[in-house]
């Protein structure tokens, strides 16, 4: 029987499980929506004691199913509290503290606890410092930041520095990381944000190729056929070879304008080698305001033909499977014809991390050695 359903009885528990299964069966383009709607109405009649089981139903669920299940949780919790009832705090807390559950339902469990007992929720926050849920982790970092600021204000600089260091180690959100690094620098300490985020800074570049009428995005230029570093290609202005490029930008900006000048209607490629200590899942996290494509170990991961609509760290998050040893990452970035000041950028930033945003660092590579020379 599913978690927390002991009170329902065998038949009701079976109906519950069928309804959850209907929600978990929904797919893309609205597939399964009608059955899910019926199942949801059934589940929403349940009592607050079904909440932990509904949360558990989100484990491994696709994003549509997770939202359907959240719909049931929201209705049951809302109705229960509106009628003056309460939520099963202990069971929700046990669910929250069990890190084998998915991060989203755990964070939702925390929010439910906070709705009914803010004091109990507060007590749990320090334990979230290394949590796989970035939302829960953020709570703990925020608390630590407050403590560190208090120590700094009281003149206890060594203790403040150490608390800031501890909070930086745990922080994954840009705003918190910038707050912490600013505080540490004010206290005279060095912070290596490039390393904290894990931006890839050593690259080989090839270009420029054309992007007249934005046709370069779909055009297959030489580096897409053969990315061997010894290869040469027919570029826009003659033969093109790979050249080493390293960025010293704190946020790992790889800027094609630096080696090639402020060009328009052009395409450039950058590739790097990432040496992984083991086989493991990871995410490529890209920020780019040009049209781009990215290949991982020779396979196209994703591409997007949008120009100058904005850029930010971790703008695009793409799951990949690292293999032990050498992995190759190839990025194509297209610059368009716009001439406004805010369209000069022809650049990207890329990092490899786990699902929480924790940097995964590459072992030293051949490229880095070349770049250093």
């Amino acid at each position, binding site marked *: 029987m599913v978690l927390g359903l002991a009170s329902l009885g065998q038949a009701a528990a079976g109906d519950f499980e069928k309804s959850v299964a209907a929600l978990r069966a929904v797919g893309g383009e609205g597939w399964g*929506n*009608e059955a*899910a709607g019926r199942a*949801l109405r059934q589940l929403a009649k349940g009592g607050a004691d079904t909440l932990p089981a509904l949360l558990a139903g989100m484990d491994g669920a696709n994003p*549509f199913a997770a*939202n359907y299940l959240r719909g049931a949780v929201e209705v049951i919790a809302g109705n229960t509290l509106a009628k003056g009832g309460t939520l099963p705090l202990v069971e929700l807390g046990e669910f929250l503290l069990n890190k084998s559950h998915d991060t989203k339902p755990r964070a939702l469990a925390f929010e439910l606890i906070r709705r009914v007992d803010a004091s109990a929720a507060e007590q749990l926050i320090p334990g979230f410092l290394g949590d796989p849920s970035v939302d829960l982790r953020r709570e703990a970092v925020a608390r630590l930041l407050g403590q560190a600021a208090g120590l700094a204000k009281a003149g206890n600089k060594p203790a403040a520095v150490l608390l800031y260091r501890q909070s930086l180690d745990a922080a994954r*959100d840009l705003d918190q990381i910038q707050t912490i690094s600013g505080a540490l620098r004010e206290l005279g300490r060095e912070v290596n944000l490039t390393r904290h985020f894990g931006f890839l800074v050593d690259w080989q570049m090839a270009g420029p190729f054309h992007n007249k009428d934005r046709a370069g995005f779909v055009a297959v230029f030489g580096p897409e056929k053969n990315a061997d570093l010894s290869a040469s290609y027919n570029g826009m202005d003659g033969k093109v070879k790979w050249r080493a490029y390293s960025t010293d930008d704190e946020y790992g900006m790889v800027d094609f304008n630096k080696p090639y000048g402020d060009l328009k209607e052009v395409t450039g490629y950058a590739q790097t080698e990432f040496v992984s200590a083991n086989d493991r899942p990871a995410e490529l996290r890209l920020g780019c305001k040009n049209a781009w494509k990215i290949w991982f170990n020779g396979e196209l991961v994703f591409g997007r033909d*949008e*120009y100058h609509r904005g850029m930010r760290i971790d*703008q695009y998050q793409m799951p990949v499977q690292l293999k032990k040893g050498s992995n190759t990452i190839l990025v194509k970035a297209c610059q368009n014809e716009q001439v406004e000041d805010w369209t000069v950028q022809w650049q990207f930033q890329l990092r490899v991390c786990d699902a929480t945003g924790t940097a995964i660092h590459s072992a030293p590579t051949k490229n880095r050695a070349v770049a250093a020379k």
Partner: protein
Amino acid sequence: MKKLILTFTFAALANGLAAGDWPGFRGPLGNGVSDEVGLPIALDAKKHIAWRIDLPGRGLSSPLVVGDRVFVTASGGTRQDQLQILCLNAADGSVIWQRQFWATGSTVCHNKTSIAAPTPVSDGKRLFAIFSSNDLFCLDLDGNLRWLRGLTVDYPNARNSLGMASSLVLAGGVLVAQVENDSESFTAGLDKQNGANLWKVNRPKSSNWTTAMVQKTKSGAEWVLLQSGKGIHAVNPKNGEVAWHYADGASTIPSSTLAGGVLYVPSHGVTALELADDGKSFRQKWRSSRLRPGTASPLVHRDRVYSLNNAGVLTCGDTDSGKRLWQLRLDGPYGGSPVVADNHLYAFNEEGKVQVVDLSAPEGRIVGEMDLGEMILCSPAVSNGALYVRSNRRIWKIARKTQL
């Protein structure tokens, strides 16, 4: 509440909505014009703010009013990935229910806008809410989720790094979602009952924040008038087929307005298109570069067309000729579209100041002002003698004291 009896009241009632409801972006006809009378004019915060409620998240979507309930969307969380839908009691602003869902699409957007930018729509029985992440939810009016879609999960390049903002419309019983952007750009007609695609058509690959207008013909047929940088496409909401195309370009920010069978398009200023009675063709009536709107959508009231530019200048033109009649400087800038009720125009600027313009004065006259003190980017709702307007933090009900 005394009301002027106008034809669109009957149209609204026929849809299962009640007179006085404000069921979507820019009201029952999507044109920002209300048949309400008796709204406060000489505004005074002490007298006319009926209630003010804190919201749990950000947003610039317009509030909706259906019956005695106000609906508003917001987005919260560090990554703006908590999508919120609230139902408030119109009488006192108390929260009747609140629902939260996770964003499944991109929550990247320009700092000024929000993931809760598009305005929901209601048919009087259900609420359809879409967010910039292209997550779409259908709930009944008691907050029970009926179905959902995640359009960026389905179509991964359907996103805009500046944010999406086109609001949903209902036409011919079909829910129309405009998901237009630089990459995987489309508009889809969805089954209201289950969210399934009835049709999906490719649209110009260009960012677009406008909201469609709906033309209802005398025979009862409805056409969706989709605006984009490529102009206007009149689309059959049953199958997505295009009846006609005005191909001379149009703005991708302010939306068109439809009044008296004429579509006023933000195109080369404003271009007036006279629509055939059966909706299957159009004729260009006039064009005026002197009526060029800024971000706010143009308005038509009686025989006048009004546009508000980014500098805050309100321009009045003649609907027959497009001739500019007068201009009045208001305190801009404006991110949200104004509304008209009882021959008064209500314009909320980005600094939270509302100005009331008496449109019966020969060259318009400012007859009321009030400062809400927070950035307002939405178009207000008008219902049952009150205005409803929201910021990133709050929602206000503005009404005469006697109506509180």
